[in-house]
């Protein structure tokens, strides 16, 4: 069996870029602000569903064609129209992707900041995590049940990346990879600057001691809403890229397991350290790809052994190992020190 090394590397880096965006967004929310977002899949899926909607509703409008029902009898024509429009009119394809990213970020951010106010209602901290987890499953069930949106259980194909005009699969994949990595780098720089800003220190203060932050006159609910807005907008952008990379939107992808993958990245890499989140994203992506390739290879050898199951067991063992023996993760968070700290040479 031949493995196309270049294509594998490109796919790996694309997945890494997307995972990095999602891990960074969770690290902002959980690592910095201490919000247990167990509904990460919800905000990622908002991006993916937005892509599904814009590719079927907005794209025909942009190229001046009539809207065709993407799920019913005109399924094939609608799919053809999408793929052809993206292939023939690269300008429109980019405009469409740009608008999708914008809409997804706005919708994701709004939903995130609204949802953050549930933290005011819950009695115990971890109920918020449960509300978010269940919320993500509610939306998944509703989108799956309401078929006109993205064809319910069947999902929607033809949500392709905008470089297909190049007529060279490797080259267009490489271009898309570059786009994803560029967005990931932007996200990283933004998150790093955020940590070092007064806002970042405020978030850490809220995480460490909420009553004190309140007593110092900071508006904790608004702070929470702001960080959820940023994090969810980022997650939705990641979701658009995830769906466009797959070329397919399906409610099956955004189940609880998806959220857990992102949590593994952050917890393994180092809670509160953005470089850790990137490292975690890299490790998880490599393991994901490696097990996927192993499973294809094993199937080609005629083996019945399912490596995808082993993947989940492996991730769970990694998670337990980190929780037990390396609680700060691989790259621990830097201790916050001030100038005075160094000048007075206070021991930490």
């Amino acid at each position, binding site marked *: 069996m031949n493995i196309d090394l270049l294509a594998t590397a490109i796919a790996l880096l694309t997945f890494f870029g997307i995972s990095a965006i999602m891990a960074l967004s969770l690290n902002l929310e*959980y690592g910095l602000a201490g919000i*247990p977002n*167990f509904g990460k899949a919800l905000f990622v899926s908002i991006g993916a569903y937005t892509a599904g909607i814009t590719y079927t509703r907005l794209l025909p409008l942009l190229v001046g064609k009539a809207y065709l029902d993407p799920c019913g009898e005109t399924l094939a024509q609608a799919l053809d129209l999408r793929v052809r429009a993206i292939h023939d009119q690269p300008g429109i394809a980019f405009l469409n992707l740009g608008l999708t990213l914008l809409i997804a970020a706005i919708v994701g951010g709004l939903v995130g900041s609204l949802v953050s106010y*549930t933290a005011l*209602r*819950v*009695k*115990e*901290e*971890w*109920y918020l*995590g*449960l*509300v978010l987890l*269940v*919320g993500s*499953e*509610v939306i998944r*069930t*509703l989108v*799956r*049940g309401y078929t006109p949106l993205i064809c*319910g*259980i069947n999902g929607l194909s033809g949500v392709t990346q905008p470089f297909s005009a190049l007529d060279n699969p490797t080259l267009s994949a490489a271009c898309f990879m570059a786009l994803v990595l560029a967005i990931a780098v932007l996200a990283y720089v933004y998150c790093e600057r955020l940590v070092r800003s007064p806002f970042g220190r405020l978030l850490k203060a809220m995480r460490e001691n909420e009553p004190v932050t309140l007593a110092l006159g900071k508006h904790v609910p608004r702070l929470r809403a702001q960080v959820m807005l940023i994090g969810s907008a980022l997650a939705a952008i990641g979701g658009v890229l995830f769906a466009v990379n797959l070329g397919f939107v399906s409610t099956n992808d955004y189940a609880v397991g998806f959220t*857990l993958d992102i*949590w593994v990245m952050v*917890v393994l890499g180092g809670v509160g350290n953005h470089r850790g989140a990137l490292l975690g994203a890299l490790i998880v992506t490599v393991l994901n790809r490696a097990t996927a390739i192993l499973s294809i290879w094993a199937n080609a050898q005629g083996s*019945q052994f*399912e490596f995808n*199951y*082993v993947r*989940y*067991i492996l*991730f*769970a*063992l990694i*998670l*337990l190992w980190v*929780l*037990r023996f390396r*609680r700060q993760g691989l790259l621990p968070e830097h201790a916050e020190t001030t100038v005075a700290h160094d000048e007075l040479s206070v021991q930490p």
Partner: protein
Amino acid sequence: MPTSLILDSLVRSLQAGSLYALMALGLTLTMAVVRLPNFAHAELITVGGYVALIVSMGVSTSVPVILCLAFIGAGLVALITHRAVYRPLARLNLSTYAMILASFAVGLILRYLIFLLVDRFDFFDKPVKVPQQVLIRTPDLILTSVFAWGVPTALLLMLALSVVLNRTDLGRQMRALANNPTLAKVIGIPVDRVHDLTWLLVGGLAGVGGALWGIYTTVNPLMGWLTLLSVFAATILGGMTSFAGTILGAYVVSFSENLLMQWLNFQFRVDFSFKPAVPFVIIIVVLLARPQGLTGLADSLNGLRRWRGPTG
């Protein structure tokens, strides 16, 4: 709505509600005594189902034997997860989120180990085969012996649990631990032993629930995971740590999933694919609007609830 539909969904509601109650009581016990929202509870249910399946294929088709072995099997698995994972982690004083993540990890390990096993022997979607006979046959309703095992067994186990909690030393120690762990340690309650026995009981209840579920429908590696949020909904509706509340909650959840859903479908053509959303909506509404669940209501129905949980 035609009578046959009403009766049919009524039977299904009662049956599912009794099984949810068994599973949810275990979860409530973990929440009260060990203070852990255990997402791996799902896999204890699945383990019970698979023990029942294997026993029914190789050992015996007698229902009491199947249920006893499912109780022991799932109980032992619960004990092992406690000793291997939860106890060492709890000694590190991790945050609740870390413990939730750990329980997810335990659940994943168990679920995919079961998947590997099931894949190897081709055990997907198999019903637990036990001799069945029709008890009542009317034009509107057919009642088989499956119903006669499920509901009474569940009621019997609920009664037994209530006796254990209210009348035995173990139950008193569990309640002490639930009320105030530090005080319980100070007055010399053997915390480790009580935790071990609690986990055995938790796993056992979930296992019997899973075994009965397997007799009632089929067994597959995702059965626990798919029922988990209904079970969580029952526990949350019961106010997290109240046993009477949990039982009531379980029936509320199953009646809304079956009877209410049937009515919505009949009246408003709501598709059955929305059925999984019912427990989700219950969880969110209760957590946001009434975090104490039904416990306040149970107070007024005097005597229903014997003791308060730690947060009650």
